[in-house]
């Protein structure tokens, strides 16, 4: 598969748009990234998409780096650059432009309404993201049950213990390697 300058530019612009929608963190825009990279352009399959996010969670550093891995796995080094620049630049510029206004008005009705009003959307986006990551495995009958069990176990472990997410991801890798999923 070869990529032209136009592809990288489109990638950058798509991620710019997602950047502006990423209230609640970049992870909430995963459904948009999935739609673009997997369903629309077929640069990644569902497993490759999920693996990209798993790899980023297993490594140290800010969560946002999953975007670099997605870009890399979809379109190589320039893909990583296009996606990262896109997801970072518009939100950062907006942040610097509006930070002092928000600081001065943080008790304003409109900001409190915005925070409250966005919460259900953020929740829905994260639950959808969980589903999209799991669906490549749920669709294979021989792996569906194991996947559901492991997801439930992870949710319980994340809520009841203080284990770092990276350890949980690595433990998941071991469980998979041993053939339980």
């Amino acid at each position, binding site marked *: 598969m070869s990529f032209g300058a136009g592809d990288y530019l489109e990638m950058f612009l798509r991620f710019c748009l997602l950047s502006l929608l990423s209230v609640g963190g970049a992870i909430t825009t995963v459904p948009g990234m999935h739609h673009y990279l997997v369903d629309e352009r077929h640069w990644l399959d569902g497993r490759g998409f999920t693996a990209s996010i798993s790899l980023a969670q297993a490594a140290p550093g800010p969560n946002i780096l999953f975007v670099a891995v997605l870009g890399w796995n979809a379109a190589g080094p320039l893909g990583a650059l296009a996606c990262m620049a896109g997801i970072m630049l518009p*939100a950062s510029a907006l942040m*610097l432009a509006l930070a002092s206004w928000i600081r001065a008005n943080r008790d304003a009705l409109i900001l409190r309404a915005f925070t409250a009003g966005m919460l*259900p959307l953020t929740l829905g986006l994260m*639950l959808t993201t969980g589903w999209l*990551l799991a669906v490549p495995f749920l669709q294979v009958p021989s792996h569906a049950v194991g996947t559901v069990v492991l997801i439930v176990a992870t949710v319980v472990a994340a809520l009841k213990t203080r284990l770092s997410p990276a350890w949980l991801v690595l433990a998941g890798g071991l469980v998979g390697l041993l053939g339980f999923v």
Partner: protein
Amino acid sequence: MTADAAVEPQLAARRPESLGELFRVFNRLALQGFGGVLPVARFELVEREQWLAPDEFVELLAICQVMPGPNVISLALLFGHRYFGLRGAAVGVAGMLAVPTVLVLGLALVYGRIASHPAAVAALRGMGAVSAGLIISTAVKSMPALRRNALGVTLGVALTLATIVGLLWLHLALYYLVPVLGGFGTWAAWRALRRRGTVR
């Protein structure tokens, strides 16, 4: 406890002396964060370096959470900007990202080589299920907030379900789903908060 201590504003004891120091501290805290840098950032900036008073950290984070963008990156951006202007913003973010990016892309490179090996496929299946579980657990942790939300539980749950249905069944794009549902949620919360009177 004296009355004075309660009203006196808390201020940071120290500040970053140079761009190099800024880079080093943000790099150090990023590398300690496995699957979430925020708790480390709090420890490093508030307790170890004392660059931020506890209240300042909370305030800065609150600003980051209102705005789009990854919260912890926005934190580095605003913190760097406060002391060194645009250069500081760039150096703070670079400190947070430079080395972790190299590490994670190294992993991606290895992944590219072994992705089709049966053992790698099996391991990544387990890792993928855990990744899905982790993101679902983040959502589950925020669910109690829905009960305290100005929208009320019914509307909150309805909007959450509408988001999921819109994305998974109707295949709506985020570009209009977020503005429409987010806009409606904000409007409804605004009405509820105003009706309640601005009691705090």
